[in-house]
């Protein structure tokens, strides 16, 4: 049995533990106010990185799903599932921080005319449905295959989300990153990148920890089955 690290994902979480407080400090005190929105704009430094991290986690889930379909190795299925799960958690955070930002900036908790927000909601709903699908199939080859296929279908939603943002000329939801580069000053960009790095590290750490937990549970179940004589 390979040596088990005491705290898997610990490296990632430690890194995020360095980046995130730094990002908070930078966002709260160091970076200058945004010209248009004032102090409340600062939640942007977390909201957008969390949103991008959500996309990253779902993408990781999709890549692992493709790997599963190619190799039929159950380990890829587990990674894919955990990726989507962590993505769903971050997705919830996006909606929460987004609502806070919306309330503070625009005075409403939700804005239906905002296409970027709606499309993210669609993606989020889609991946929540993933869990419904996964748990209405008995464990085994079929469940892993269906989960992978569903995850890959969702990949189509990600670029279409971005496309929808381009088409929508919504003035309400600021589009900060355009094809001509970031519409931010250098110190804003730095703060943003620190926060983004922190969020990615956090997501990676969560994925590692959840994988460890799931694998341990599978090992326990294998042992239980061996004891009961229902193993294969």
């Amino acid at each position, binding site marked *: 049995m390979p040596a088990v690290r005491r705290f898997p994902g610990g490296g990632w979480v430690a890194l995020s533990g360095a980046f995130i407080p730094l990002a908070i400090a930078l966002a709260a005190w160091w970076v200058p106010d945004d010209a248009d929105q004032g102090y409340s704009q600062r939640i942007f430094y977390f909201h957008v990185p969390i949103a991008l991290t959500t996309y990253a986690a779902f993408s990781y889930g999709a890549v692992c799903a493709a790997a599963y379909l190619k190799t039929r190795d159950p380990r890829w299925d587990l990674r894919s599932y955990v990726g989507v799960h962590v993505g769903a958690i971050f997705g919830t955070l996006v909606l929460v921080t987004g609502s806070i930002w919306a309330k503070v900036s625009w005075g409403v908790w939700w804005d239906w005319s905002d296409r970027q927000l709606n499309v993210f909601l669609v993606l989020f709903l889609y991946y929540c449905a993933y869990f419904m699908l996964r748990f209405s199939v008995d464990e085994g080859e079929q469940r892993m295959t269906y989960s992978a296929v569903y995850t890959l279908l969702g990949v189509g939603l990600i670029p279409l989300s971005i496309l929808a943002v381009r088409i929508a000329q919504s003035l309400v939801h600021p589009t900060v990153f355009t094809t001509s580069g970031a519409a931010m000053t250098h110190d804003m960009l730095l703060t943003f990148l620190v926060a983004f790095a922190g969020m990615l590290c956090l997501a990676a750490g969560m994925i590692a920890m959840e994988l460890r937990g799931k694998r341990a549970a599978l090992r326990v179940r294998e042992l239980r089955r061996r004891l009961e004589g*229902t193993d294969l």
Partner: protein
Amino acid sequence: MSPTIELAACSKRFGERVALRRVSFTVPAGTAVALTGPNGSGKSTVLRVVAGLVRPTAGAALVDGTPAADLERTARGTIGYLGHRALAYRGMTAAENLRLMARLHRRPADAVAGALAEVGLGDRGDDRIDGFSRGMLQRLSLARILVTGPALLLLDEPATGLDSEGAALLDAVLGRLRGQVTLLAATHDDAFAARHADAVIRLDRGEVA
């Protein structure tokens, strides 16, 4: 032409239920093996695994060395599977069902009439199958297999629902094909096994007994 079947430590689990545990046996090309055992012993699962409709959880089910679920198209088409259900469309007539199968299996349409005659449904070809009895559906299933010109026969309790005439027709068909196809049949009927099989494998609770 007829394939060799090999199960190598083949296991299948459905949720918490173990249907097959480390089942291993071989059916040499052109021979016939009967699978016997009580209800729930895994006979149907073995047939579905060999047909490639179900993937094993562990181990392998090989048809001429290739995993059954990964068979390439043409090889897949040589499998004749007779299960508990008719594998046909209720809203269509017997002949229409068979013509569809012939079409998909790239077989000539005139094979349909011959298949219907061989199972004793020659005069029922233009009747919709919603009106068919259990025994007639069973005969239709057999006709479906004949139309596709199989090299491998996987039969799940083929005599179920057949009256004496149907059973005789089934015996005739299997007798005609003996040696030309590989046969794996699940059955409760020892006499049937004795008539048509070169060997018998008994399953009990998912394992070879």
